[in-house]
């Protein structure tokens, strides 16, 4: 029985989260009893795109975001390719995979070192036996990790300098491939840059070879590995996760979804599908967006994105966010690295999640594990490039057509749905990863994934300072600028 009346608090703004986020919580007995997540920025990209030349989506959509810029490019290019009925050539596919993987890996790295870990160097943990060590390593701005990571990250993004001209906001990714052919000499430069980053991961993040890391398949093997790799940054995280019981924070048991990632000869490296106790194929026609709790109008019930509307209405009284509520067959879905690896059947992530579900600890492990899984693939893709073969195919854009672009950004599934009429964009709808994870409630009043994850969180009597809430929010690696766009 509740002894004190509910307290309501508005939390925000959240730093080290890309974009603007506000969370409303109700607290009973020092625990979050209800959470409402608000994306307080609306810019109207879907409206901006209406009436534009279809190919100009390649200029507008990457500019939705400074960290998922390439993912937006790839989704737009794929949607346009669908409308054109165009197939990319092998070189174009390899180069696109490399550019996308470069961004996704950079985002995983940035998230872990710059966004997520600095919270463990907060003053609230001053009395922990590990504080000194973690504070020296991960303190925001001044920790030794930042000094290692910023140069490594900048050097890593040289891959985009060659493959995509620059990062962010490249126009190199096209419906039929990429605009930048690669010479034999440049293959060497790319490979060297990839190996430099491999060295960073092997010497600093894991203190182990990537192959040894990805060979870990069970919880026991992970525990054994942790014992022998305590001075690695991954080892440090695992130690914190045990000591602070991060497995008990931010748990949810929603369906997990992945659009599949890194297509090469048709087969994606990471499978497409849905995980809910078992694997299901994904039927994207079951995706709808609901606006019951959004500051939007113009549709009375949830609609598939091909028929979606985006009309802001700040007076909408049942609304509490600019974000729509995407649902798969009316269900709430969680997306991100942990979902991607569950759907793909990665043995370790399968073992961990089937044991305890998705939560702060497993989300972070899946992300770091992906760094180890994807890098060796990038070495392969780079070697498979054939410099004398074409990099880009072209075909005419039909006057009336439609297309879908589905990609996996670092933080989860990103979809673009385009309808073209009389040679112009008639409708363009985007569902970003954080739109799934940080959605408001829907017409059935089902809370979104973060809203569920926050429920039950113990915040103590000073809820505004609650670091637990911060760990949970950041464990999703949210990108709020993409969420509402």
């Amino acid at each position: 029985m509740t002894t004190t009346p509910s307290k309501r608090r508005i939390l925000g703004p959240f730093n080290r989260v890309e974009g603007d986020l506000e969370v409303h919580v109700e607290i009973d007995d020092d625990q979050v009893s209800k959470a409402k997540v608000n994306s307080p920025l609306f810019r109207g990209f879907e409206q901006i795109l209406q009436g534009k030349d279809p190919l100009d989506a390649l200029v507008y959509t990457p500019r939705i975001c400074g960290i998922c810029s390439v993912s937006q490019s790839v989704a737009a290019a794929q949607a346009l390719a669908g409308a054109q009925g165009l197939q990319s050539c092998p070189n174009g596919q390899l180069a696109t995979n490399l550019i996308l993987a470069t961004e996704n890996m950079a985002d995983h790295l940035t998230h872990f070192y710059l966004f997520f870990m600095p919270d463990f160097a907060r003053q609230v943990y001053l009395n922990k036996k590990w504080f000194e060590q973690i504070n020296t390593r991960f303190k925001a701005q001044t920790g030794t990790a930042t000094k290692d990571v910023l140069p490594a990250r900048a050097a890593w993004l040289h891959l985009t300098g060659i493959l995509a001209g620059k990062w962010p906001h490249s126009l190199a990714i096209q419906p039929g491939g990429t605009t930048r052919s690669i010479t034999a000499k440049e293959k060497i430069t790319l490979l060297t840059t990839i190996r430099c980053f491999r060295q960073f991961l092997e010497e600093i993040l894991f203190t182990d070879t990537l192959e040894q890391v990805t060979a870990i398949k069970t919880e026991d093997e992970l525990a054994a590995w942790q014992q022998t790799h305590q001075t690695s940054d991954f080892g440090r995280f695992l130690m914190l996760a045990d000591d602070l019981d991060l497995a008990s924070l931010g748990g949810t048991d929603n369906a997990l979804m992945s659009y599949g990632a890194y297509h090469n000869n048709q087969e994606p490296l990471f499978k497409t599908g849905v995980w809910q106790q078992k694997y299901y194929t994904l039927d994207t026609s079951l995706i709808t967006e609901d606006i019951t709790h959004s500051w939007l109008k113009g549709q009375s019930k949830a609609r598939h994105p091909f028929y979606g509307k985006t009309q802001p209405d700040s007076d909408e009284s049942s609304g509490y966010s600019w974000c729509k509520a995407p649902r798969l067959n009316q269900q709430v879905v969680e997306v991100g690295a942990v979902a991607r690896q569950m759907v793909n059947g990665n043995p370790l992530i399968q073992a961990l999640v089937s044991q305890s579900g998705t939560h702060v600890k497993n989300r972070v492990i899946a992300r770091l594990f992906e760094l180890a899984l994807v890098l060796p693939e990038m070495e392969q893709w780079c070697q498979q490039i054939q410099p004398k073969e074409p990099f880009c195919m072209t075909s005419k854009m039909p006057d009336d057509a439609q297309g879908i672009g589905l990609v996996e950004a670092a933080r989860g599934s990103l979809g673009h749905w385009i309808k073209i009429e009389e040679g112009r964009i008639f409708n363009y709808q985007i569902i970003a990863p954080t739109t799934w994870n940080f959605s408001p409630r829907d017409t059935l009043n089902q809370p979104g994934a973060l809203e569920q994850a926050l429920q039950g969180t113990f915040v103590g009597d000073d809820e505004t300072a609650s670091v637990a809430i911060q760990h949970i929010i950041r464990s999703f690696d949210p990108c709020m600028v993409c969420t509402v766009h």
Partner: protein
Amino acid sequence: MSVLNAETPDFLNSLKFNNINLLWHPSLSEASADEFLSLLENIESGTIPLDALCLEGSVMRGPNGTGRFHMLSGTKRPMMRLIESLAQKARYTVAVGSCATFGGITMAGSNPGEACGLQYEGQQPSGLLGESWKSEAGLPVINIAGCPTHPSWVIETLAQMAAADFSKDNLDNYNRPRSYTDHLVHHGCPRNEYYEFKASAEQPSDQGCMMEHRGCLGTQARADCNIRLWNGEGSCLRGGYACINCTAPEFEEPDGNFTETHKVAGIPVGLPTDVPKAWFVALASLAKAATPKRLKVNAVSDHIRIVPGAIEEDKEQ
């Protein structure tokens, strides 16, 4: 995020070596929620001095001028009100990127968010703060335009301010730092030889000059992108796609499509501004008549087919 790509030294060391103390950065600082709100309070009350306010992203004034499209989280305050208030406190106010400068990409189409820049709305001087506004240092908003900005455009400008070595003379007609806008994107473009002979690219991965068919505005765009490269060896042109003049106001609404040259009577409308049109056309047709086979062939290929210095002009590799 572009600024975090800074190199030799990295972003934080670049600030440190130029005596810049970062009060707050959305991706790097620890302070969140209440800690951040109290920092703002201290700046607004004058307890903490603010040397430079850097704004990234446009000012969202909608709907109907209320600013509801962008509220400061955790408060009931529209972001545009906070920006106005901080700008009054800051010695220098800096717009980072074309959105904060001119309104940029968010102003495209019907401008659903009622977006504008700090002191411009597209080409019109006005914006949130108004044409005549000056910061405490007696300067208008310093507009580091670009979508995105090159990390060193930002760092060097801040460093000049920190060294008290920045004046009106350092700014161009749109108050952009001349350190990068005294150049054209065309300067140093590896396609210059193709340009000279009007050997033009036709398809997305072709190597020729992109001015004639593929929408390149490099001869008008003011920035040093091909001199000061991006992410190591890159630039838009080196990446195989057109310059879309992203440092200019209203780049987001081109005359035609972004990657197709807008022409009137077969002549590109976007000729270099200070080159007489008749002269350009005459020169172009002369150059076309003299184009070496090497350039003609390579311009429409995605790799070099005829190498320079091949003894017989048409020797293909």
